[in-house]
């Protein structure tokens, strides 16, 4: 964008790779601070963030030793359920006290299973200890009659929300363990059934909202995280419609039903709004709106907001900016992504939205440079490394990882190229066909 980039590359904030490596090394080698206790039951996805971040930074084979990597692999297998699938952490495994009567309280978990398999792929495990048949037999049981997937199955009831995070992970498990082969599959001499792909597609169609985004359920507010999960799941089962007419002749059900509306909604997620405390009202001030015009009433208002409040019309419409340079070129050092309409940018949506646009085969529709500036200049932590959710926030694992992943989509020096649909490096994704070959399944694409 005009002013900033004309001043030369030195003005561009850069990835402080050494600090990111330090951050993730600490996450791997020392205990996570006690504040993560509330995420104890999400440990496998935290584990995936750590392993995958080190992989994206190119140090997964140097930061942990070979022996340590073996230990990590063993821990993941320790979380494997005896009947297939994985638990989120060993906390539900009753060990010597496990019995038929308490087995219901120790279920395999859909997201845990996806993140376990993805982590094994990153660690170059040979998958020989994965209970593949059991896992693929369990998978269809995790789908409800309406096509949605749950998180766990306890006492014959599929539990957890109906939202597409579980659909994404379930179809991801299917993709890793059986490619895009549909229908019954012969494994270890037994015929293993498939999930109901068509009813899942219908589920996504019902969740398409009136403004083009995708929600978790019909009539819920569209959300970039759910939009990504829906699109990613459709890609895993080869039912994604991107609107390029290549697929429109297909006789099978596809989604989304209106790809250009989804693309437009995604493009609208990029935003200069960065201050979560500012209150979005201050961003554009209507001429007759006096109540929000006093900056002193809003202690947290951001830079742009303040400037705009002085003007009676939005600042980018005043005469001095009518020569083709917008106020944003002059003042904003980046534009991240929001998760919903009229919300501020948040690091993680750089991934959710960016990867969604990549999946829709429109990777150039957002301003990658402005996005990099938002993340590298604002949410990258200057001392600790990693990324926070909002500018100035301390880093956390989720935002630290999804920040790197978003950069991996954008072509950033020092970060491996990301396979958006799987949220891990393309390099790791390319190892999948080797597994498929061994299992005699293939990617039908």
């Amino acid at each position, binding site marked *: 964008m005009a002013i900033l980039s004309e001043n030369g590359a030195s003005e561009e904030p850069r990835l402080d790779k050494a600090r990111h490596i330090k951050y993730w090394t600490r996450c791997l080698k020392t205990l996570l601070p006690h504040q993560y206790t509330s995420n104890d039951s999400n440990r*496998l996805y935290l584990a995936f963030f750590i392993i995958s971040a080190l992989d994206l930074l190119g140090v997964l084979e140097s930061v942990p030793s070979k022996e340590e990597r073996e230990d990590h692999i*063993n821990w993941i297998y320790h979380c494997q359920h005896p009947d297939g699938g994985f638990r989120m952490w060993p906390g539900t495994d009753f060990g010597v006290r496990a019995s038929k009567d308490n087995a219901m309280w120790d279920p395999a978990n859909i997201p845990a299973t996806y993140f376990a398999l993805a982590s094994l792929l990153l660690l170059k495990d040979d998958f020989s200890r994965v209970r593949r048949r059991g896992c693929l037999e369990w998978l269809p049981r995790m789908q409800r009659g309406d096509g949605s997937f749950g998180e766990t199955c306890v006492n014959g009831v599929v539990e957890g929300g109906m939202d597409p995070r579980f659909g994404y992970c379930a179809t991801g498990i299917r993709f890793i363990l059986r490619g895009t082969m549909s229908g019954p599959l012969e494994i270890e001499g037994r015929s293993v059934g498939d999930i109901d792909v068509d009813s899942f597609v219908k589920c996504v169609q019902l969740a398409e909202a009136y403004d083009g985004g995708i929600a978790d359920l019909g009539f819920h507010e569209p959300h970039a995280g759910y939009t990504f999960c829906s699109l990613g799941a459709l890609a895993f089962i080869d039912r994604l419609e991107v609107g390029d007419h290549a697929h429109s002749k297909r006789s099978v059900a596809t989604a989304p039903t209106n790809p250009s509306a989804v693309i437009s909604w995604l493009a609208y997620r990029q935003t200069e709004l960065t201050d979560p405390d500012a209150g979005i009202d201050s961003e554009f001030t209507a001429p007759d709106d006096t109540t929000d015009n006093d900056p002193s009433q809003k202690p947290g208002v951001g830079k742009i907001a303040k400037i705009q409040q002085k003007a009676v019309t939005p600042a980018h419409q005043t005469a001095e900016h009518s020569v083709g340079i917008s106020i944003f070129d002059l003042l904003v050092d980046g534009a991240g992504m929001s998760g919903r309409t009229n919300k501020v940018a948040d690091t993680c949506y750089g991934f959710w939205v960016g990867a969604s646009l990549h999946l829709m085969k429109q990777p*150039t529709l957002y301003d990658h440079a402005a996005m990099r500036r938002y993340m590298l200049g604002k949410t990258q932590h200057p001392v600790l490394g990693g990324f926070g959710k909002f500018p100035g926030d301390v880093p956390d694992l989720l935002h630290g990882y999804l920040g790197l992943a978003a950069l991996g989509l954008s072509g950033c020096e020092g970060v491996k190229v990301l396979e958006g649909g799987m949220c891990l490096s393309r390099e790791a994704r390319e190892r999948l066909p080797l597994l498929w070959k061994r299992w005699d399944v293939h990617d039908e694409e």
Partner: protein
Amino acid sequence: MGKYSEDPLWADIEPLPTDEGGPNPLAAIAYSEEYEETMSYMRAVMAANEYSDRVLELTEDLIDMNPAHYTVWLYRAKTLFHLDKDLREELEWLNETALEHQKNYQIWHHRNLIVDRLDDCEGETEFVEQMFVKDAKNYHVWSYRQWLVKRFGLWETEELEFTERMLREDVRNNSAWNHRWYIVNGREAEGVKGEWDEGLRKRELDFAKNAVGKTPQNQSPWNYLRAIVRTAGVPLASLKEFAEQYASLDRPDSVRSSFALDLLADIFAEEEGGKDKAGKALDLLAAKYDPIRKNYWAYRKSQLGLESSTPEAVVAA
């Protein structure tokens, strides 16, 4: 020594610590001693399938420290139903817990379960509104509100007034706009007319237009307007006169809303020979009113078969 190991009430339970399986477990957390102890009692109780009053207390302690524990919530629900507990009391406990962990999904699922079982939503809409004071866009709370509406049939005037109240607080609250859409259109499957009803449609169009009048640079009501005409099968051009109040190619320096300009581009594109005008509107967005999306505006032009006039717009991914 801790709360449970020192309590004679728990003396019969042999705690069951978690086994990490070997060295170098992943994402291990510096748990407090209190958490480790609570967890090891919880595990022992679950292994024994004990459903008792003391178990309810134990789950409360554990949930307070780890509200994401997916089986403990189910275990608690089973215990409550097994003991035939007063579910109103459970709601009171949930009220406090929800305020502390409002972003947690399980809490809302549990509440759902309890209220469904009570078959009575008294006080629930008030509680939801209280939650919105803390965060008026909390996704779980809005989802829960939708569930209440459907489960207890709260469709009519009160719920519309509620969206109006929320939008008076913040006219940019897209969650409230979405909820309004649901209230108006959420029963079409059951044969209740939404935007297809002309009187209703006029009311909703006026409502959204009025909101645009207050905040022209607010995408929510613009999206709402577009959705109404699309859903009702009314031509997009019916919004032309209204959009031109906020953006006009004749006065390119005084556009008051980039969303009006975007809408006009779509309206022009549908007009006979209107493609060039659509292109001009898109150029204006790219150059001046919404430059962060300049690649998107160039894409929109290419969709119309128009050449991009800003070659620098398309950058490599």
